[in-house]
């Protein structure tokens, strides 16, 4: 597949190069900036991305064969014009075709806008480092009059506190910060005791919170960050961190969005403990990113997985891929969530079952090759298991153990990111909203084509 694409696209590559170097790069940067404010353009970019790029870069841009496109690491340049040119020309050596011939200019710009709309992380990171002699009062106002002992631009969009090289220093970092657009986040630091901080977002000081760990609420989306840190006077406490962990997380510390310092990057990279259901079906009860508490995850060797929740007695997530990275939930204090590996087919608040917890009474589950959950929904006693798992489908079977006098059952279906749903009883399609319990003793729900 890849070599075929390479051959096909290799021929037109030379032509594309000539065409695209003639573009004025500022104008592309500006045009993409304009598109970023046009929801229709971003939607159209999203659609093209889904068709042409998602296979290699993952639907959520988190990367697979191709690189992660939403973090702050850009090997081939992170300006809109760089990305535009990279899409146009591709990397035939590495297996990415050029799209200059297949997609018109507008489509490619829309894709760049879509990618930038998902962007998380830092850009344009600049730092100034000061020595203690320059701030005799150990006050940030001393820095206004001082010339930095060292200054520059970070080449990898991360703050590297080790650049200071001395034990005692003050640092002022300015950067573009892309926080998640749809979730609240905070800048989070583990500096140890006695260091001083000042944080400005879009020029406004932000109040520091926390005691031992420090944090500052962020805005959603793009913002300008100024981060100042001044280490205490030496000799200082041994727990004071000269190279602190600085990152962006959800306010409940459940999800690490991205590292801000090189130290945080190495810590986050170590937070990996993958549980792969490669040999047998696995059942894991952990805190899972983006799923509600009380979820129980089931992973199949066919690289398809689902989660059952004991509070709504329903399926609250289904994803394709290896099972779970439980590292963030089992390393250190385990404050953060386990991460499903792969792509969502659906996730909470989409459910197979109900979101009404009052209807649910969970009883137990059995392990094995077909894990089975026992519960009541609206007093109807049920069991739920999987009849069949393939790499693109899962067939669930509900058995009615005891209707307890109820004549019908309503099972809400989830909206899927991909694929379709079939609900069958006795070989017939049935309406899941009104399952006739006088007739139906068992029914299946198949999620296929995912």
């Amino acid at each position, binding site marked *: 597949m890849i070599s075929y694409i390479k051959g096909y696209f290799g021929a037109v590559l030379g032509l594309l190069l000539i065409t695209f170097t003639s573009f004025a790069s500022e104008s592309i940067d500006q045009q993409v900036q304009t598109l970023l404010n046009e929801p229709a353009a971003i939607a159209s970019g999203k659609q093209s991305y889904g068709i042409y790029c998602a296979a290699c870069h993952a639907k959520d841009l988190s990367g697979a064969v191709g690189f992660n496109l939403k973090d702050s690491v850009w090997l081939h340049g992170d300006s809109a014009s760089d990305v535009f040119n990279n899409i146009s020309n591709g990397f035939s050596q590495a297996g990415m075709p050029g799209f200059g011939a297949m997609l018109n200019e507008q489509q490619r710009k829309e894709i760049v806008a879509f990618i930038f709309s998902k962007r998380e992380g830092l850009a344009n990171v600049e730092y100034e480092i000061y020595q203690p002699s320059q701030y005799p009062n150990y006050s940030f106002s001393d820095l206004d009059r001082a010339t930095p002992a060292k200054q520059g631009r970070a080449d990898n969009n991360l703050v590297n506190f080790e650049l200071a090289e001395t034990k005692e220093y003050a640092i002022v970092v300015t950067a573009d910060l892309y926080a998640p657009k749809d979730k609240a986040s905070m800048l989070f630091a583990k500096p*140890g005791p006695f260091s001083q901080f000042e944080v400005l977002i879009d020029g406004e000081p932000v109040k520091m919170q926390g*005691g*031992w760990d420090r944090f500052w609420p962020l805005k959603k989306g793009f913002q300008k960050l100024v981060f100042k840190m001044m280490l205490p006077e030496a000799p200082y406490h041994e727990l004071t961190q000269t190279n602190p962990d600085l990152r962006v997380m959800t306010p409940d510390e459940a999800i690490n969005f991205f590292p801000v310092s090189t130290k945080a990057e190495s810590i986050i990279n170590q937070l990996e403990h993958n549980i792969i259901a490669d040999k047998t079906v696995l059942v*894991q*009860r952990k*805190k899972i990113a983006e799923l509600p*508490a009380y979820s129980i995850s089931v992973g199949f060797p066919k690289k398809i997985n689902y989660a059952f929740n004991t509070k709504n007695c329903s399926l609250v997530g289904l994803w394709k891929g290896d099972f779970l990275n439980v590292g963030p939930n*089992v390393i*250190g204090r385990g404050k953060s*969530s386990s991460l499903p590996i792969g792509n969502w087919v659906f996730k909470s608040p989409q459910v197979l079952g109900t979101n009404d917890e009052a209807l649910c009474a969970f009883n137990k589950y059995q392990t094995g090759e077909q894990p089975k959950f026992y519960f009541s929904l609206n007093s109807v006693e049920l069991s739920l298991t999987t009849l069949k798992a393939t790499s693109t489908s899962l067939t669930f079977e509900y058995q009615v153990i005891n209707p307890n006098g109820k004549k019908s059952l309503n099972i809400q279906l989830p909206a899927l990111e991909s694929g379709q749903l079939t609900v069958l009883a006795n070989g017939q399609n049935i309406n899941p909203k009104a399952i006739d319990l006088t007739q139906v003793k068992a029914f299946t729900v198949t999620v296929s084509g995912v």
Partner: protein
Amino acid sequence: MKLQIKKSLLAASLMAAILPVQAEQVIPTGYKVETIKTPQGMEFHVTGLDVDSKNNIYAATRFGDVWRYTPEGQWQKFAEGLHEPTGLLVEDDNHIVVAQKPELTRLSDTDKDGVADEYIRVADGWKFHDNYHEYHFGPVKDKAGNYYGTLNLSHGDPNAFDMGTMGSSGGYRGWAYQVNQQGEFTPYAFGLRSPAGIGISPDDEIFFTDNQGDWVATSTLQLLKKDKFYGHPVSLIDHPDYTPEKIRNTSVEAYDKWREKPVVHIPHVEIANSPGNPEWNTTKGQFGPFEGQIFVGDQTQSNVFRIMLEEIDGVRQGAVINFIDGFQSGNIRVTFDQKGQLWIGQTARGWGAKGSKPYGLQKVVWDGTTPFELQNIQAKADGFRVSFTQPIDAKSIKKKAISAEQWHYNYGSDYGSPKVDLTQIDINSVKQVDDKTIDIKLDATQGYVVMLDFAGLTNKKGSSASSTKVYYTLNKKPN
């Protein structure tokens, strides 16, 4: 387990607590610590521990597995995929009940192949909000068949109600609960903070430990009683008579009057920072001369200490003394097996421990040699009666052999309390009662913790005890 650090200024004292000057290991003669090899490649943080009738040891790990260790020394995995269990009870040889964060769960081996195949909900009547600190400790089971557990407050949950440090997003955080044989969940008592250990006495009374921190001056041993308040106001958001405003506006004095006073204060650093479950020694002498006493491990100090209880005019109180220190990791769970050996489950993940290993399993074995140690201490109107496990050398029985001091603690929202009104107490006299017992006359104050150091007392061979400092919580002075 508990939050150790709140304010940066506490850090210095904290480090002193975790990294003390290397001292000789405290261990009574006749006892030794053995290390059990845990399954290869597993992060074996043991936070649940019990034994069945055939002397299989069951260990629940923080990772979420339950393992069986056979008397032949083999490890077999019994269950997996649990959510950070921090307690385990063997009900019978096919049923294990575990306290995992979201649920009290019975693990059942229905096909008798040695591996659990059913995970049955026993209770989940509280709320779990996916906060890392929402630990669930227990269970113990009383003679009527009721289960009891304790529910930790949360920490760092942005949605929680808090008063500075520990918080609750509701759903009985900071409560103890009861579940009866019919599975009915009853919120049982409140005001708990980080109640990392629950235990049941041979008399069917339930006790729990709580970890030092906000509203807990120093770690405690408490007697669990229905509908009682144990001092941490945050849990009151689930109390029908309270609102957040009322909780904040109620005076410390009012809370102080209302709360149950600890049966035993466990002095911070000297004995423990993060005590685990209290375990009664009912080994009928298999574990040496400390029959009927309570053994508790400490996660931070990597030690095991002893507690002796008594009741004066209906008031519970008692004393605590170090037993063995220098364990390899943080001791959070202890249990006696059928041979009277004391097993210790260990973890140091996320919270430092004196012992350098991140996790593990050890046991304490007695070889039959009686050491010279404090046997018991009882309050008297004019001092204390102290007995020893061996005859005392009469020549060492003199005032100079013993020193004493006393203090009390502040109750309030501060993270822990210093020793308040710390004073030396004069030893008025020391008198031999029999060959192993002495009466120490001194003037101690009711409501204080009294520390007696009998470093000068020796046995007939001239040896002093391995632990010479005993701390008595004098809730009630006998008349």
